[in-house]
Every structure is written in C-alpha cells, then in structure tokens.
C-alpha cells in the first residue's frame, strides 16, 4: 500500500513542484515550443483522466441512491452517507480508530526511545542492530500472518489489541529508522547543554530531543497510522470477534453480501479514506516547517 519513504513527500509537494524547472527562456518560445507545450498538456490530461477514471465510480456511486457497479449519472442523494454513519458500520470505523491509534502509539513511543538510543548512545552491536532495523523495515511483515495467527491462537490473542500490537511491529522498523534520522539531525550541543543543567535522560528526551525531532516523529506516526488504518489481511485473520472488526473488513463484508448496497459501499469507502487524506494534508505542512530547526544553532 501507500508506503513509506514517500511519507517525506506529500500532497502539497505536488503544489510545491513550482520551483523553477528547466524551461527555455520566454523569448525563444517559437511555434515549435508552443506545439510541444500543447502536446505535453494533452498527454498529461490523458494521464490524468486515466488516473481519475477508477475513482469516478466511488464518487458517483456514493451520491447515487440507485448505484450499481457501473458508472452512470447519479440519482443524487446523501442517503448512502446517512446509512453508513450509523450502527455497526460506525462501530467498525471506531474499531479502526482504536486499532490505528493503539498501534501508532505503541510503535511511536517504543520507536522513539529505540531511535534515540540508536542515534546517541554507545550500544553493543549497534551496526548489526541498525542493519536489522533497516532490513526488517524492508520486509513486508504482513506476509507473516500465518505464524502470527498460529501463535496468537495458542494464547487466545485473536482480538483487537494483540492485533494492534502486531500492527505496530509491522511499522516499527521503518518508524525507528525515520526517527533515528531526524534525531541524528538534532544538534548534540543542545543535549549537552541540557545535561549540564542536570537534566535527566527523560527530561532531555521530553524537553529537547522529542520537540526538536517532532516532524520526524510525526511523520513516523502518520506512517504507522496509515499502515494500521488501511491494513486488511492482518485484522481479517487475527481479529476473531465480529464486533472488533475494523472498517476495511466491513467494506469487504459489504462486498460479499447477497444484496450489495453499492451506494453504501462507495459512501463508506469515501468516509474511510477521509482520515488518510487529512493526515497527508496536515503532514505535508508539518514536514515543511519541520526541516527548519529554528535558529538556535548557527545563524
């Protein structure tokens, strides 16, 4: 799904691609370059339409009270949204929130400690540990559902919280890696200054390192959240009680019902996408502000 290292980029970066590209000077804009520019925009437009086409159904069906799989002009109605924002579907969204928040909290909190100590401390076998972190951030842990299922079932863990813990592990390595890079960038002087003031490790972390590495921690947390929010196969297998199933499973269940409510499926999916879209929008701002570490260090 939506990985990863691209978290450093985001929606607004698209808008930011305004920095001056390699363009021929205006006075050389001949007939030929005009034709070229037109071609370029045509090609882009076509690509845009191709990318937009699959989303058409989602938007049209969500406001269509007689929706089907096909794309057709909607019989406009918001009834679908009204339907999906009640009862068990709302509860599934809530489960998604619980799952994603807990998993993000675990990964981010344990991750920031690990990242700090990997960044700053002398640690035995630090090199191999870091390699292990990088390696496991590359291996998609979702392919381990079978052994994890086997282990969870033996301990009676097939429910939402142990699943949240497992999901946190699936994003933990990359979060540690990301946060370590950000903590590396926090000047060591600041930490030494705090230490000279008799600040404890916890105080140094809480008052100096964490605030300054916040953009990285936020980026890592958003990655973790999106990872848990969109996960499908892991909760499908690892969460047993029906009332603990998160929204992706509800969407999938929708699909398999004898009487599919296409409008509801589309509306629910849109609602489900909203938090992700918001997070990306918010995070892009965070990143831009974040990379400026204030003026505390060297003009």
């Amino acid at each position, binding site marked *: 799904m939506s990985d990863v290292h691209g978290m450093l980029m985001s929606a607004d970066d698209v808008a930011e691609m305004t920095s001056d590209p390699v363009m021929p000077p205006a006075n050389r804009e001949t007939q030929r370059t005009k034709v070229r520019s037109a071609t370029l925009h045509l090609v882009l437009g076509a690509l845009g339409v191709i990318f937009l086409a699959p989303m058409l159904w989602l938007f049209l069906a969500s406001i269509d009270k007689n929706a089907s799989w096909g794309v057709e002009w909607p019989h406009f109605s918001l009834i679908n949204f009204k339907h999906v924002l009640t009862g068990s579907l709302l509860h599934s969204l809530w489960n998604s929130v619980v799952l994603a928040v807990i998993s993000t909290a675990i990964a981010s909190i344990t991750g920031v400690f690990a990242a700090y100590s990997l960044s700053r401390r002398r640690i035995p076998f630090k090199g191999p540990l870091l390699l292990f972190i990088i390696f496991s951030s590359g291996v998609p842990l979702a392919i381990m559902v079978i052994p994890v299922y086997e282990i969870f079932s033996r301990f009676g863990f097939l429910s939402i919280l142990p699943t949240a813990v497992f999901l946190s592990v699936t994003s933990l390595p990359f979060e540690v890696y990301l946060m370590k890079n950000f903590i590396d960038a926090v000047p060591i002087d600041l930490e030494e200054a705090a230490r000279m003031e008799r600040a404890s490790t916890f105080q140094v972390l809480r008052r100096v390192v964490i605030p300054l590495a916040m953009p990285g921690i936020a980026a890592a947390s958003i990655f973790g959240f999106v990872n848990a929010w969109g996960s499908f196969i892991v909760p499908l297998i690892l969460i047993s009680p029906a009332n603990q199933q998160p929204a992706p499973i509800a969407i*999938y269940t929708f699909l398999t019902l004898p009487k599919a409510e296409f409008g509801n499926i589309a509306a629910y999916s849109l609602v489900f996408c909203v938090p992700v879209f918001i997070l990306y929008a918010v995070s892009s701002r965070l990143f831009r502000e974040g990379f400026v570490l204030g003026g505390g260090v060297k003009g």
Partner: protein
Amino acid sequence: MASLPVMDTVTGPSMSELWKTRHDKSRYQWSSLGLLTPAFALLVLLFLVPMGFAVYLGLTNLTLVGPTAIHSAFTGMANLERLKSDTTFWSSLWATGIFIVGSVVGVVVVGYVLASLLMRARPWMRMIVGGVVVVAWMMPAVTAGMTWYASTTGGGAFSTLLGIPNTNFLDNDPLLVVTLASIWSMTGFSMLVMGAALRNIPSEAIEAATVENASSWQRFRMIILPLLRPTMTAVVLLTGLLALANFSLIYIMTQGGPGNATNILPLYSYQQAFTYNNLAYGALIGNVMVVIATVFGVFYVRITARRL
C-alpha cells in the same frame, strides 16, 4: 593529532598507577538498554519468533481443521517435495514475477513521465493531475481494489469511457488489470520521489548539454538517468517489495481468480492456509516469499546502509 607520546615525558611514582586506570573506557549506559528493550522485545517477539516459527510450521502437517489441526507432526521435507511438484505454485510464482516486474516497470516509467512532464506543465495542470495521482496513491488498498473492480468490470468506468460498455476487462485480462491497478496505486509515490530528485538535478548540467547540442534523448540518457539512478533503484526495490506483499488489492478484485490467473504468492499462501486448510503448506509458501523479500531486502540494506 599527535601519536602516542613517549612514556618518559611523564615521570614520578604516580605514573604507573596513572596508566593502570582508564576513566573513559567504552561504557555502555544501562539506560540505553532500557530505551532499546521495548522496541526490540516487540521485534523479537512478533518478527523474529514468528519468522522462525514459520520455518518450523512449513515442515509440519498442521492444518486449520481436520485431524492434524490439533495433533500436528513434524514431517520434514514433505511439504518442500510437494512444493517442487506443485504446478499451481509454479504458475503462481510466474504470475508473481509478472506482477512484480510489471508493477515496478510501470511505476518507474509512469512515475518518471509524470514527474518530468509535470515539471514543465502549467501550475493548474500540475495541481490537478498531480493531485489525482497522489490521491490514488493515498487510497487504502481495500478501497483501491474496489474502485478498480468497479471500473474494469462490464459497465464500469473504463468500458463506458471507451464506448464498449459490456466489455469486462477484469475477466478478459485479469493479470494485466490487477497489474495496472497496482501501478495506479503506487505511481504517486514514485512521481513524488522522482520529482524531488529531478528538481535536485542542477539545471546547469542540462543547459551545458543543450549547449553541446545533445538531443533530448542523449540528455536523458547521459545526464538525467545517471543522476536519477540511486532514486530509481530505491523506488524499484520498494515498489518491488510492496508488490510482492500486495494481498488486499488483488483479493478484493479477483480473489486470485479467475482460475489461478491472478493468484500471486500471498494469495496462494492464504488460499492454501485458510481455504484448503493447509496452514503448514501456506506457511511454507510464506517462507518462499520471505526468501524473495530477503533478496530485495539485502539490496535495500546495501543501498540504504550507505546513507546511514
């Protein structure tokens, strides 16, 4: 820096004592261990242990239901033998290969084309097209799978837009369609990453080449491509890994079908484990994926470690 000075610059009875004690011996702070433990305990318990357990599971006859669900036994290489002659596995491996290669090539090529065209496009075009591509990338896999199912089935968006409303692309060319869906869902990422890399290419380099009268293909091949190579390698590895693990998208769209056309390894592993009840055999197929991922992972580590 000065090399170790001669000992006799220091004299007096205290000297031997002085050299005996070293105050700055490499000391590990216990608190470091405390800080590391939670994260590594989680990784060991839920990554290393399951990984090792999966290796063991792959060598048993554990099933989901049936007599060996409770009383499973170690069966050694039996599952491996079965894997060797399992034609479904080999066709699944082949489909996986096509799916990964297709996804990666598509993501890199389309991502690059979009990034380089958007750089030269007008701002409103950049906003709209770039925005659409990024939204496609952000969409959770379940939703992406569903929208692709809806738009490629008969009467869906593509056939309607093309004026052949009853054509069912998904059933006619299932592997092609799911690969396209996979490209669609990852291109935003590569577009952003390569866009950033493209903006970092000094314009002087390209201008210099233009002055030397290099054709645009030559400029691409001799200047842009070499400078973009590290970024492209990273994109290739990451999208490769993501494609390998892409379960949700395909499961929603085709559940591996029709037949075994889109039954890539993660789906086949799931099918064996949970549809045919062969947990052990499913785990073994999972192990094959881990091996493939490891190959990618090693390259990934070698590339990332340089930037450590």
